[in-house]
């Protein structure tokens, strides 16, 4: 191993039941280096970290650590800690029922000469440590009394207090405010000076360029590449994360074009937000308009849609639907206002596997009418047949259990469910994910056709080409906030990428 390399992982493969989470992923970390580990949600960042610390068992690949001959494997976090790898996991991993001080020192608490836990010393040390982070809190109080941000700082304090040569921070800044982030950066730079190698996972691009020396990019569990910060400006980074080769992007012209300003407003959201998922945003959608939501996975696309629909109740702002102020408390209110939501996680939120295709189709309509007004069977059959025909759902019969259908056809059934309620406004969250290319095109056509009939649509997709083809206008999201809109001439792949990357794109 080269002299200044402290950690090298290569060819790491790891499979969860049904998901290949890592496929020959790797990472190289030098002494005194801060390396950003980047990738969209689900790229495998947390998984590769957990492979390193022994939480996940990997099937292939090697890990080399400075000071150890040959490849190492860690049995568990404790083992990793003893080898000098200290980790703050993405989920705050502390015990709510223990005091702050104990959370920092548990497992390695200072002992008195009788080998009992020296609480006094432990509390004093914890207090000092927290003060170094500018946090003046009661360290004897239980952790559950403190906010998520503070808990995150406590987890960080725990990690940096251990003597380590590799420090791993998996999205430590997600709930910190600017001041706290600044403090964290100072601490990181101090450790860097001492020669600690730091792996830093974040979804805030500007943070990468503020403190990091190198960038490792993962996509779909694979290593895309390892770069220095200078080599990889923002836009290139986004392109690498999304898997687009930025230099030869073909410009795809949108078909739709803009909708005139005279078309009536269907949705007029002002300052809606949901704590922890989406910051306040404004959004207008006109009749017959398809608005795309774009941004990296996890940037708040689904969350924005869910806030409008009331699936996550908005705490601020106002929402006007067709000019009238709407108070949406739960999804049924949204349905009664003529909205429909096709969720992105159709397994968890959408389909009910043990019901038939027919039952799944009439589900939303029945919910809207209320349980007392049962839709007559003849009507149900008629509706089901109509949509099976219209969307070309491939099913043995209308009474087939939906779980026996392929993913694409399940998707169509859920789409049919919402179309059956005859909504004026539809939210389609990744309607084409995981379905074959032919069906994809059909769904895209259907969206355009619905818009032509005067319906309004929010269309969310990770595929920019698809969005460009179907949308009239796009809203851009970054880090849980709506940061802008693009329309007209900017509606090209390149334009979208620049908008997603944000900042000075030539940085």
């Amino acid at each position, binding site marked *: 191993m080269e002299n200044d390399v402290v950690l090298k992982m290569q060819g790491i493969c790891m499979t969860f039941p049904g998901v290949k989470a890592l496929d020959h992923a790797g990472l190289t970390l030098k002494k005194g280096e801060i390396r950003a580990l980047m990738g969209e949600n689900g790229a495998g960042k947390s998984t590769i970290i957990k492979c390193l610390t022994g939480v996940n068992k990997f099937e292939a690949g090697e890990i080399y650590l400075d000071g150890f001959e040959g490849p190492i494997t860690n049995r*568990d*976090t404790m083992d990793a800690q003893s080898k000098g790898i200290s980790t703050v*996991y993405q989920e705050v991993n502390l015990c709510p*029922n223990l005091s702050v001080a*104990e*959370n920092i020192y*548990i*497992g390695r608490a200072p002992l008195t000469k009788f080998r009992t836990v020296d609480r006094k010393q432990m*509390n004093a040390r914890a207090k000092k440590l927290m003060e170094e982070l500018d946090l003046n809190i009661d360290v004897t109080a239980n952790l*559950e009394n403190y906010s998520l941000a503070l808990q995150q700082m406590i987890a960080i304090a725990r990690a940096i207090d251990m003597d380590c040569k590799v420090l791993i921070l998996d999205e430590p800044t997600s709930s910190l405010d600017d001041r706290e982030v600044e403090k964290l950066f100072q601490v990181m730079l101090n450790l860097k000076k001492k020669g600690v190698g730091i792996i830093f996972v974040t979804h805030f691009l500007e943070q990468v360029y503020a403190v990091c020396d190198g960038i490792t990019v993962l996509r779909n569990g694979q290593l895309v590449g390892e770069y220095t910060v200078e080599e990889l400006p923002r836009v290139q980074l986004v392109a690498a994360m999304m898997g687009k080769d930025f230099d030869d992007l073909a410009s795809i012209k949108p078909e739709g074009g803009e909708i005139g300003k005279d078309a009536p407003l269907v949705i007029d959201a002002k300052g809606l937000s949901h704590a922890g998922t989406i910051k306040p945003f404004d959004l207008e959608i006109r009749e017959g308009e398809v608005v795309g939501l774009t941004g990296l996975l996890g940037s708040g696309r689904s969350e924005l849609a869910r806030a409008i629909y009331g699936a996550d109740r908005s705490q601020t702002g106002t929402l006007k639907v067709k000019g009238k102020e709407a108070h949406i408390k739960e999804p049924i209110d949204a349905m009664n206002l003529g909205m429909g939501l096709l969720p992105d996680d159709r397994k968890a939120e959408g389909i009910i596997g043990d019901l038939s295709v027919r039952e799944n189709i009439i589900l939303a309509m029945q919910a809207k009418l209320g349980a007392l007004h049962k839709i007559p069977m003849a009507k149900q059959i008629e509706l089901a047949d109509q949509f099976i025909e219209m969307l070309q759902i491939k099913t043995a019969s209308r009474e087939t259990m939906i779980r026996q259908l392929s993913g694409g056809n399940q998707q169509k059934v859920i789409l049919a469910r919402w179309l059956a309620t005859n909504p004026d406004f539809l939210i389609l969250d990744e309607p084409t994910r995981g379905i074959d290319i032919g069906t994809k095109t059909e769904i895209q056509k259907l969206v355009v056709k619905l818009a032509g009939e005067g319906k309004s649509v929010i269309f969310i997709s990770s595929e920019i080409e698809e969005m460009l083809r179907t949308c009239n206008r796009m809203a851009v999201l970054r880090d849980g906030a709506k940061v802008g809109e693009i329309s007209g001439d900017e509606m090209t792949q390149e334009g979208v990428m620049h908008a997603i990357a944000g900042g000075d794109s030539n940085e």
Partner: protein
Amino acid sequence: MKKAKLNNNNVLLLITIVLFAAMYLAGCIVYAGKGFTRLQTFLNILIGNAGLISVTCGMTCVMLTGGIDISVGSLVALDCMMMAVGVEKMGMGSPVLMVFILIVGVVFGAVQGFCIAYLEIQPFIVTMAGMFFARGMTAVLSTQQISITSDALFTKLAGTKIEFPFGGYVNTKGILQVPYIRVTVVVALLVVLATFFLLNYTRFGRSIYAVGGNQQSAALMGLDVKKTQLKTYILCSFLTSIGGICFCLNTMNGTVGQATGLEMSAISSAVIGGTLLTGGVGNVFGSLFGVLINGTISSLVQTNGKLISSWANIVTAILLCFFILLQAVFAKVKERNK
């Protein structure tokens, strides 16, 4: 800094203590004529439940990790039977038997703990198997009731009164009755203190709380969750064996049907004492008061004389519901405050 923080968990303990005090006071007022106010009545509750106190300490530790051990009642029966058979049929000395009983407890707990921690089988299932096994072994040793009479030391231990220099009263025959406790009470209270110390001032004890608070977090913080679980089940069976010896000193016999349902008394005492069924919250002083509340209920029913003893069970059941409901409410409130 030393200011006691009145959080939900302390509130649960406080409610338990207040409830105990209120119940006892009510007994004193209603049954003053029947001698409920005498110090000895209270001490009798301690004497009668000495074994249970020790067992409940073990149960509390297991419940703190988020587990359960329903084998304790049967293990107590097995302990008594081993003592009885050893002394009466095999002519062994009681000190040797006591050590043997404690070793059996450790081994029994180790096997259960291993299955739970390392083979990841449900605690309920494992300890249910343990329950049947221990009860079965008791019957294998003997199906008869065997009284322990021939071991001088054991008889002396059981008969020893530790008298109090105050609080006596003169009975109807004009003889001064001095309040006393038995050796078992001293043992039980020492167990409470030792367990309290272990839970609060050792790394192992704190790990128990961490595992119960959030098992996944504990593992990610580098604690050995499995080892902690294993050790906790060993501890539980060990304390149960101490309780078993105390129990035997009280009953002075071994029979198959002994201590049936003791596990349920231990669990309900721990819950009434503020131990969360989900783990992570509770302490042994709460559990001690839990036992005392259960004991007071029985004592009240007995003192009344007209009620059948099942009334004690009914009241315990109501209390249990009340406390579990309270736990649920607190959990909800906590979530709301998030």
